[in-house]
């Protein structure tokens, strides 16, 4: 049977505001599945042209797939969101790149012709499911020295990455973090973020965290606008004595969910759906687990090679800021300035937060907004590092591109 690979597009993406994990966080009494369900419902409301019956798949990522993130959350979230029972779903896990992998996996199926349209997203409630909950690493990892003992502690891998790039100092990382907060605050002030947020009702029964009763969350909780270098300078380096990685130059522990619609371009056009980005290529790469933050570099190399592009063709970057050092290593590798205007225009995870498996779609949603505003840009990429030594990169084409001017 002859097959034609089909163009795949990013139709739309939304997310919940991100919260701080823990008893005082906005989502402390909110279920993880409810977060992703509300994101899916918002997508459907925003895209009335998308007939729910036509959705071929719901792929939802979560790192810790137990409790309210278990039970094949892609399937259960679909039912809870009110999708027809005929719409299937599944769960997916690539830790931090969960939602990104949900997107690329359904995209592959769309390109292959198995699906016309799918929902891809992710959720991580790190308050209800702290990192490492229920893990049981095989003792051979240590006994056979398959990985360094620091590989399971993301902060330590970030310190290791600083070792690999001695020129990336704590000062540079802090400066990057301050800029991320500034850019995020500016993006908020300019209304770039809110349009893709789903308001979430939240209940609080314990007065320690503030007013009790039902409330409504419409903005990211982790943001620290006005952060200065001085603020950051004094923070502890919990992962290494005299280290460089602090709570200020890394993403925090967060709760949140994202969802997107991925479709064949033909389907999107026929159904009057927006085409916000066109998929060019995607790639994953493995690196030593103890320097997992290096992952985006080889992943991007592969993705660029597949697309026949070079780094200079990329006009916009959305790089997940798990740690400032990981972004800086990437930029240093490609000879891009720390404050290059093409990189993370709206700020990043250091400001917004990084609920592990949900973050990939946040990068895409923000890149899609930037594409729309910047039709002179043809290509952009979303990339992130992944626990246990991986990187993930997706290259996108701007459908609004107006040609070189």
């Amino acid at each position: 049977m002859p097959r034609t690979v089909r163009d795949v597009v990013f139709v739309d993406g939304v997310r919940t505001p991100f919260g701080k994990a823990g008893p005082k966080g906005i989502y402390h009494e909110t279920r993880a599945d409810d977060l992703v369900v509300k994101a899916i419902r918002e997508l459907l409301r925003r895209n009335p042209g998308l007939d729910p019956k036509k959705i071929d798949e719901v792929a939802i990522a979560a790192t810790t797939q137990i409790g309210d993130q278990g039970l094949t959350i892609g399937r259960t979230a679909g039912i809870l969101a009110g999708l027809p029972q005929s719409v299937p779903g599944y769960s997916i896990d690539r830790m931090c790149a969960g939602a990104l992998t949900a997107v690329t996996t359904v995209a592959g199926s769309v390109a292959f012709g198995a699906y016309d349209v799918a929902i891809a997203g992710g959720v991580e409630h790190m308050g209800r499911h702290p990192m490492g909950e229920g893990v049981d690493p095989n003792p051979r990892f240590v006994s056979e020295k398959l990985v360094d003992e620091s590989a399971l502690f993301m902060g330590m891998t970030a310190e290791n990455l600083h070792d690999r790039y001695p020129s990336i100092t704590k000062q540079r990382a802090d400066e990057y973090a301050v800029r991320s907060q500034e850019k995020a605050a500016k993006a908020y002030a300019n209304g770039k973020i809110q349009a893709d947020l789903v308001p979430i009702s939240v209940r609080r029964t314990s007065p320690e965290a503030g007013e009790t009763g039902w409330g409504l969350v419409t903005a990211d909780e982790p943001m620290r606008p006005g952060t200065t270098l001085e603020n950051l300078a004094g923070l502890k380096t919990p992962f290494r004595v005299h280290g460089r990685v602090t709570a200020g130059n890394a993403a925090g522990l967060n709760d949140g969910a994202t969802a997107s619609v991925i479709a064949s371009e033909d389907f999107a056009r026929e159904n009057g759906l927006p085409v916000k980005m066109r998929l060019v290529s995607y790639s994953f790469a493995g690196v030593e687990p103890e320097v997992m933050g290096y992952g985006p570099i080889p992943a991007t190399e592969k993705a660029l090679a597949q697309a026949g592009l070079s780094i200079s063709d990329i006009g916009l970057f959305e790089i997940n800021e798990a740690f400032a050092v990981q972004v800086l290593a990437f930029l240093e590798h490609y000879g891009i300035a720390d404050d290059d205007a093409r990189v993370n225009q709206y700020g990043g995870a250091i400001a917004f937060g990084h609920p592990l498996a949900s973050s990939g779609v946040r990068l895409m949603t923000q890149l899609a907004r930037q594409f729309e505003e910047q039709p002179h840009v043809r290509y952009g990429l979303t990339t992130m590092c992944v626990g246990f030594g991986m990187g993930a990169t997706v290259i996108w084409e701007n459908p609004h591109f107006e040609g070189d001017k």
Partner: protein
Amino acid sequence: MSTTAELLKGAAELFPGEVVTQAHVRHFDLPLGAGRFALITLDNGHDHTKPTTLGPQSLANIDAAIDQVEKEAADGEIVGVGVTGKPFIFAVGADLKGVELLKRHEDALAIGKGGHDVFKRLAKLAVPTFAYYNGAAMGGGVEIGLHCTYRTVSAALPAFSLPEVFLGLVPGWGGCTLLPNLIGAEKAVSVIIENSLNQNRQLKGKQVYELGIADALFEGADFLEQSLIWTASVLKGEITVERPAVDRGEAWDQAVAKGRFVADSKVHGAAPAAYRALDIIAAAKDGDLQKGYDAEDQALADLIMGGELRAGIYAFNLVQKRGKRPAGAPDKNLARPVTKVGVVGAGLMASQLALLFLRRLEVPVVLTDIDQERIDKGVGYVHAEIDKLLGKGRINQDKANRLKALVTGVLDKAEGFADADFIIEAVFEEMGVKQQVFAEVEAVAPAHAILATNTSSLSVTEMASKLRHPERVVGFHFFNPVAVLPLLEIVRGEKTDDASLATAFGVAKKLKKTAVLVKDAPAFVVNRILTRFMGEIQNVIDEGTPVEVAEKAVEPLGLPMSPLVLLELVGPAIGLHVSETLNRAFPDRFTVSPNLKAVVEAGKRGFYVYDSGKPELDPEVAALLKQGDTVLTEEQVRDRVLDAVAQEIGLMLDEGVVAEAQDIDLCLITGAGWPFHLGGITPYLDREGVSERVTGKRFLEPGVASVPA
């Protein structure tokens, strides 16, 4: 302290056991840049199994929350105020336990006024108010929302009602006045009167919206979020709420008249609540809210101090609590599993039982009878009923297939019952026949199997007496129509053991029946009382009182139907049979009416013909009646009948037929449809002084189903 706060503080002191609802106030920015908002969450701190109620301290908490938002609204700090509930529950109204404790008219008045005073403040804030009916909303819960400027409702809301009239009250925190002014008298009457009097029918979220009570409907998954976005749009003027104008002309009077007709047909003027509510609705026509609130206060206070409400609450608690935890039932852990059911007989009653067991237990049910033709007919009936359920969409094809496959019929009891755990007989009502059937069943059934009888009047002990294992025989007496009436009288024979009884109660629970433990006494509870009641009516007719006088005499009780209409429903022949049985047992009190005998012998199915659309005495029956010349007044008839009923209940309690008078009432409510406002019957007999006149004492202590001393 404000007068309202003082009023509520006084009321709260009368009700120390209140489950107190908090009114949490939380502030946040609305979407769309609509401004700062204050949301009040009503929450009693328990999960949804203990719904939020509104006692005096709870009202005081709401009052304090309003103090806070009132100031913020006046100071321009907020743009609106919302009210919502904890997960799955908005608020289910006044706390009935607190109402039961009230002893004085002025305290009752304070409850009504306290609610009004607090809720009215919502309507007077300097900013618009919004109620978000997120979950179950009843009575005072509904009324809080009615005082708000706008309302939204969740499509997932399972139950919404103003059930006050059902209980014997009026919606007295604004419901009677505000609802007709919001949605018109006709719809308000349907909610306040008709739904209440139709077994307290509940509305679903969609209906609440369609009736116009709520201005917007949102799905449950993100109800609060969508409500708040809607709120923002309303506040920004992007959405204008338009409500159809209320017809204040003739339609209003017609609606009230229709409400009176409904009330008459249900309670026959016997219970005051519906009429008081209708009076207030009628007066609300001119839109004078305060006048309406005052009338509500007065009606509430009068009704709270009246017997019908206390009886209503008592009846409600019987059905909701005692009905679910039967008095005297053995430890449920003794119950044995029931994985297959046998039914002896394949007639109509047996087939109905087979269908019920099949639907509720979903285990194999096997019917037996004396020939294949009857068996085929019985199984065919069950299959046809399953198809009806399928046709109505009550079950799907898979379930229909499953149920049909589970029901079988065999001629050979040995084949059918060899592995049955529970075998019920519904054969001809004659001791010899039933003993024979049980002997045959015992010969083939497993040693542990329960042998149950659906007898309505025969002795369970005698039926078991010739068996090797009489300890496993249980009376299991259903009421017709089996699918409709909740009551199941479970009869303990002399030798019935605890395990068998526990199994019977376990099965009853799975059948979703209201089980009452009854001693093996003639005709058990409901039939004994009904037969004594009917017998006395028959007696006065036989002695010379005209039929219509006898019938009208008991109308003030508000029974579901007149005695002779009931006799028609039961079937005169069956009525006669039961009266004969009871006459043999208690010849001094239970008579056998010669006129009834004549009617049965003439093959008549009832006393009335309905050619004119109304019941009229059948001339053929009239010709059969031989009456004496003692003509009583309605009042005299009523006294005789009630005296007889009181005497019989007194004797039954002395005999230990049931544990307490409460069980008698529970039986009459769930097995004979006797009304809540009578509390079954014993609260009424106490209230009217009948009990003391006949038995020398009350059936229930003051305060149990009446205003406490």
